[in-house]
């Protein structure tokens, strides 16, 4: 909705707006704007630009649309009566969204979503996405959002406004904590499930990884539910300290997995990266996992991997078979 829109984006939106307007004949400007996620000024501006576009002098081959007193009116429908077919990315996204929704807590595969998806087979084929007979190809695209224990309960509590008491393993402190939370939103991102909740311990809105929740119990208290946007990626924070690490070729996955500020190619396929460090413990864990495939060049304090590795080696001394 914000930012400049290029000609392609504007035309793309117009080509879905016009067929819809022709079908309804007239609609309040604010409703059109909300429906198509634009401001009223953007809708009015774009519609006025294409009004009377087409093939003059043939009136029935021109876009006949005008905005008056907060209402959009459409005249003789002739051009652009049908939406453009789906593009391949649109069709693929629709297919995976529907498959993903089937995996979410509370989905009903036999219900409206399943029937809608079956009807999609034809347009998917038009977009070159699916030529399987009657959409029975569930093996071709699988969205696996396997949920840890408690995901359903947390989703229900978020929808119903039920406060919960949870036991939570805090990796930053490496300890088990007890707290009450008011779940706001449950979401999956990059292979993990999270709950965004008002945390009674810190009195802040926090994101908890669901697989670190050890126990869950209703407190019996209810709260008002509100519509909450899930957070964008949590990692990128300009205030966070940075560390410089050299990575062997086998450790290049770090570049895919974590945000990095700088990447410098070195000899023999090694790279030097500067990356944000959310905590010493996090950096220690990364260095431990990378082992000989990484070298810490520069950090704000001591090398936290060394102390952690020594502690781990002590544990190996304690436990022998």
């Amino acid at each position, binding site marked *: 909705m914000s930012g400049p829109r290029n*000609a392609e984006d504007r*035309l*793309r939106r117009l080509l*879905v707006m016009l067929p819809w307007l022709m079908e309804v004949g007239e609609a309040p400007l604010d409703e059109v704007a909300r*429906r198509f996620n634009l401001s009223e000024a953007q809708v009015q501006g774009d519609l006025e*630009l294409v009004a009377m*576009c087409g*093939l003059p002098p043939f009136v029935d*081959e021109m876009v006949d649309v005008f905005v008056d007193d907060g209402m959009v009116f459409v005249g003789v429908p002739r*051009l*652009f009566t*049908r*939406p*453009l*077919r789906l593009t*391949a*990315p*649109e069709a693929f*996204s*629709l297919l*995976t*969204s529907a498959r*993903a*929704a089937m995996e*979410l*807590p509370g989905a009903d595969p036999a219900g409206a*979503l399943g029937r*809608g998806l079956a*009807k999609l087979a034809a347009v998917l084929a038009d*977009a070159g*996405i*699916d030529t399987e007979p009657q959409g029975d190809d569930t*093996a*071709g695209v*699988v*969205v*696996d959002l396997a949920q840890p224990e408690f995901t359903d309960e947390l*989703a229900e509590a*978020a929808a119903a406004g039920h406060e919960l008491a949870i036991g939570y*393993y805090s990796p930053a402190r490496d300890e088990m904590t007890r707290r009450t939370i008011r779940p706001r*939103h*449950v979401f*999956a*991102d*990059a*292979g993990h499930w999270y709950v965004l909740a008002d945390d009674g311990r810190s009195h802040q809105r926090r994101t908890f990884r669901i*697989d670190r929740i*050890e126990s869950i119990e209703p407190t019996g208290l209810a709260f008002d539910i509100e519509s909450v946007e899930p957070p964008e990626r949590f990692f990128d924070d300009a205030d966070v300290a940075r560390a410089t690490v050299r990575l062997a070729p086998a450790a290049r996955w770090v570049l*895919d997995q974590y945000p990095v500020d700088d990447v410098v190619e070195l*000899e023999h396929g090694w790279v030097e990266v500067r990356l944000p460090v959310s905590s010493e413990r996090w950096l220690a*864990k990364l260095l431990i996992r990378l082992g000989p495939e990484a070298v810490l060049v520069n950090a704000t304090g001591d090398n936290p991997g*060394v102390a952690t*590795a020594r502690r*781990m*080696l002590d*544990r*190996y001394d304690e*436990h*022998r*078979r």
Partner: protein
Amino acid sequence: MVDRIERLTNLLALLLETSRPLSLVEIAGELVGQYPDNERSRRASFERDKAALREIGVPIETEMVTGGPYSGQTTYRIDRRAYELTDLDLTPDEMRALQVAVAAVRSEPGQHAIWKLGGALDDERPAVSAVIPERPELPAIRSAVAARAPIEFSYRGDDRKLDPWGLLLRGGFWYVIGHDHARNERRTFRVDRFDPADDDGADTVRVGEPGSFDRPPSFDPRTAFPADPKQIGHGAEESVDALVRISALRAGAVERELGSDRVVERAGDGSVVVSVPAGNLPAFRSWVLGLLDHAVVESPDDLRRHLIDWLTDVAEPTTETIRP
């Protein structure tokens, strides 16, 4: 000069309505005053418009004129049947369900698809959502899976040819699973690790002849690709089980992750010993190390030794030079 949106709309209308393919000269003649008079800048503007229309999915057909005074010229038109969306006849509850699905995934191309199908923007925030990564390669791979067409791509510097059997999103990544021609066995590739296209503009994924292979009837990406992350990239048959002691603090979480049947011993202090497949060494090591000092490999000896060596390397960093 008219606004670009107007010119694009007029061009679209003209090419949709024309009864025969039109050359650029004819197009400029119809759209009076909208394209530059200079031949070269007219061609450049038109090419830009054509690319913009194709970018949003408009199927523009081109034809080369043979014979006659216009021989050698290219002509253009849009086939209305290819342009228009097939009517799906979705019932309101089906439309609503698809709308909610797209809202839960927050996909921009998905939202465009919803608009085309006649749905609205779903402004209610669902209580549950999922981030599904979008990759430009996926639609092409998907259509190759459906058409049984082989794909060629470059993966970590190697050229690969694969009969793609299916796509799987798991653990936040898209994988394509299929039969690798050169290695003559089933292989799995992470789609976001495909090498980017060459400088010459070739596509990252090249799709071959449809109907080139049969997919095994029993194929299911979920089982072809085991859920246990320590099995990824390996056949189950070569698996070795390791015994790992987990401290009391993480015992519950690990038991939930692996299942209770993996617990072989429960100690009085709350710690447990679990039996874990370790066939894929890097994946196993990464899992054990991720638990930090809450996990100790007890057996087999060579695995235990491997982890001790690994940790010693971190505990005693080389001082003489900084690798490489």
